[in-house]
């Protein structure tokens, strides 16, 4: 959300955020859902359309800005966060969003990403994580699982993937969340939460690439398996999941384990209670790493949300302070410093 809140007179509809360009993603691509949810949510974030900018890099996901009827910048590969940072510093009054992919943000763009988190630049980053390079036709990405067979790894990849949430937390991100392309309601809620946050809001969206990595997240999205494999995080609520909410999460040391809530031994009260506001990043880090262990559910929701001064706000504060102290600069003050002399 922009620093100077700047609410529209009229109530927008999703259509107001739909550009005149036809959408060029493959039929069935998860990106369609993300676009739809953003367009549905934006009428509720309370920012004037002309004050919203989408910046992206290169990739299927990075085509996103073309389809939003806001200001938009389709950048170059990996540099979306850097372009957006400059824009936000120059124009703190704008609501600046980054649409990016796992190759764009996590591979070539990794440095700009971690520095954005560190500086807490007020950007909303939507990561379309399909664990593959879509636009270049299916090479593995830094979020692809080890052993992944792709065009560039015909015998399987030998590197370990990034855990984007872990990386963001390691880089001190102030807002870290995860959601699913196939869960429109939750996706909408997360978009709103990102919009409300002041500072770098990092939202990882598991997105299905039905052409090159189909079904990567199906166990999290298919009716039969979803409930038992997804843990929906809610502030202040105990961590419960499962078809009949029959499973809970508790900590054994620092290691989250599943407890059975049916067979009486454990109750909801034994479950870990979610606290996204914890000033320490530890809880969030534990949740981000929950899936390190086989058989643990995948947490979705806001893992962390803390408030601290944003980089762009800091810049404004300093300019204000110096200007008050020294008075506004003029060309004469600038050019005629105190060691001039006259020739005549």
């Amino acid at each position, binding site marked *: 959300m922009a620093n100077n809140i700047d609410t529209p007179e009229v109530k927008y509809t999703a259509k107001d955020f739909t550009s005149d360009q036809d959408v060029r993603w493959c039929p069935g691509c998860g990106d369609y859902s993300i676009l739809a949810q953003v367009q549905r949510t934006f009428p509720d974030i309370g920012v004037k359309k002309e004050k919203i900018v989408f910046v992206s890099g290169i990739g299927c996901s990075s085509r996103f800005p073309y389809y939003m009827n806001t200001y*938009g910048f389709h*950048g170059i590969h990996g540099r979306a966060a850097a372009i957006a940072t400059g824009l936000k*510093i*120059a124009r703190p009054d704008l609501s600046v969003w980054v649409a990016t992919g796992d190759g764009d943000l996590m591979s070539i763009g990794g440095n700009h990403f971690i520095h954005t988190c560190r500086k807490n630049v007020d950007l909303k980053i939507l990561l379309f994580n399909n664990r593959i390079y879509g636009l270049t036709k299916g090479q593995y990405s830094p979020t692809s699982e080890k052993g992944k067979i792709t065009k560039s790894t015909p015998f399987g990849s030998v590197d370990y993937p990034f855990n984007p949430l872990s990386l963001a937390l390691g880089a001190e991100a102030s807002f870290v969340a995860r959601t699913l392309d196939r869960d429109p309601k939750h996706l909408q809620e997360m978009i709103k939460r990102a919009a409300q946050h002041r500072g770098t809001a990092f939202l990882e969206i598991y997105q299905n690439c039905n052409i090159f990595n189909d079904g990567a997240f199906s166990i999290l999205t298919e009716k039969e398996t979803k409930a038992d494999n997804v843990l929906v995080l809610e502030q202040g609520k105990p961590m419960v999941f499962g078809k009949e909410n029959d499973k809970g999460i508790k900590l054994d040391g620092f290691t989250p384990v599943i407890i059975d809530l049916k067979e009486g031994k454990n109750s909801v009260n034994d479950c870990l209670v979610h606290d996204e506001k914890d000033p320490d990043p530890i809880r969030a880090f534990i949740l981000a790493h929950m899936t390190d262990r086989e058989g643990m559910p995948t947490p979705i929701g806001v893992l962390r949300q803390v408030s601290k001064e944003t980089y762009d706000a800091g810049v404004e504060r300093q300019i204000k302070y110096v200007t008050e102290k020294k008075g506004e600069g003029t060309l004469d003050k600038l050019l005629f410093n105190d060691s001039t002399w006259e020739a005549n």
Partner: protein
Amino acid sequence: MALETEKEVLGLSEVTIRFAGDSGDGMQLTGSQFSDTTALVGNDLGTLPDYPAEIRAPAGTLYGVSGFQLHFSSSDVHTPGDTPDVLVAMNPAALKINLKDLKEGGMIIANSDSFDAKNLKMAGYEKNPLEDDSLSRYKLVSIPITSLTGNALQDSGLSMKEITRCKNFFTLGLTYWLFNRPLEPTLNWIETKFSKNQAIADANAKVLKAGYYFGENTELFTTRYTVEPARLPKGIYRNVSGNEAIALGFVAASQRSGLPLFLGSYPITPASDILHYLSGYKNYGVKTFQAEDEIAGIASAIGASYGGSLAITTTSGPGMALKTEAMGLAVMTELPLVIINIQRGGPSTGLPTKTEQADLFQAVYGRNGESPIPVLATSTPSDCFYMSLEAARIAIKYMTPVILLSDGYIANGSEPWRIPHVDELPEIDVHFWEKKEGFAPYLRDENLARPWVKIGTPGLEHRIGGLEKAHITGNVSYDPDNHDFMVRMRAAKVKKIEDDIPGLEVQHEQEGELLVLGWGGTYGAITEAVLKLRAQGKKVSQAHLKYLFPFQKNLGEALKRFKKILIPEINLGQLSTIIRSEFLIAPISYTKVKGLPFKSSEIQNKILEVLGGGNGK
């Protein structure tokens, strides 16, 4: 403050002095203080700082020697001087390295305290040159500067380390006396600079005076010298370095255009000072962003430009290389942006603290695809101010990135500058597109520029990016004919700038035997060489390029009027190559790639060689 004195005072028309010592001896500071004071007393001057890439290379080593040369005069100065009249050598290594440049019979002021066995050995002296007669060809004045400084600060309560650190002020005071310069400017500077540490401030002031009075009272000097103020055009002056002038130029451009200034940059020698200066101008609304790397530096500037700022990015060769891809994005999105390259010795990390002109090819040709970008170059420290305004004007008017080339020599060198009055500066007018009717992001105005929209303007929401754009609508287009059209359109737009820039002025005869054509930092050396030879009756003309792409319209014409064209460059002949392809003529390329500016004598000799027996008539 010229003290009363019985000593003989000799008037000189010009002097070149070089301060040399360890990188820890504060020679750069001594030199710049001497320059500022000398400027204040009204001499014209030129400077050449020359220091190693190490911060404080071990004391006494040859590669650790840091030097600062200064040329001041009662008439016009175009260079830092070829051969010093006076060499200040704070240690044996400094003497060893610099002696070869000293003028026959020149003066050596040596700090005898540092000529001990250890230092002599490190400098590779068998015997102490101050004591054998090896320096008999020079006026040798050896002074125990360290101990004299010590005496002066005996009861200052400072540590020995702190005391010795003050010794450069003794040297400075002494040379102030020798050349009859006032102490006040430096005394004031000390006061403000060390305001946080009064003890140090007092010590430095004390030592400065001690040096001055030492000159006054010692028998070592029988004469002192004065150099009358130069007859500079009427006006208010200040001393300015090239990098400072660039900073001032863009703040001025911001004020004249009404656009807030945004700098996205990553530190790199010799460009960092521009970032340092601009980050001090917060109260001018200047926003400086020290990015994580050069790519983020230019990318953030592109973002700021899209947001309606006057956006610039500063760097040097290796950083320029990293910005290449993003420059292409600025070309495709047609956003105003100035990319400033303070050239240094290459290739690769090369010679980071030395000067060179070898990034011209990169600026003109160095991008993927047909990616035309106007290229401008500065020629002197004060010229940096005006070329910065010009680069901003072109970028905004034509909605294009612009490359502004400077170099380490111009950047760190300084000269007196007549401060212009605000009304002497060009207005830079900016028209943001506002009306909804008839808007399209890739419309063209009479300059072939597309509209610039201030984000936040209702109804003008639009998308731009790096894929090929359809003419007018700006939609993504893979249409073959549109691509061909747009490639030629972008080229035509940049070419069109030639109609909007001043024609090339040839100095002296407009035709004849020889024209010396230069660009960038060679201006001073060429000018001095040409003037000296003309004074000897040689007919030789001069022209200097500030617009490297596109060239000024009349350049071809101007060149045709001369039998021979001589192009001196600090590279292997890059401008010559471009001139050859552009005009199908064969200039004489004169190159030197030593990390140092040309000496005017080198250019004089080359001109004489080219003129052969004849004198250009």
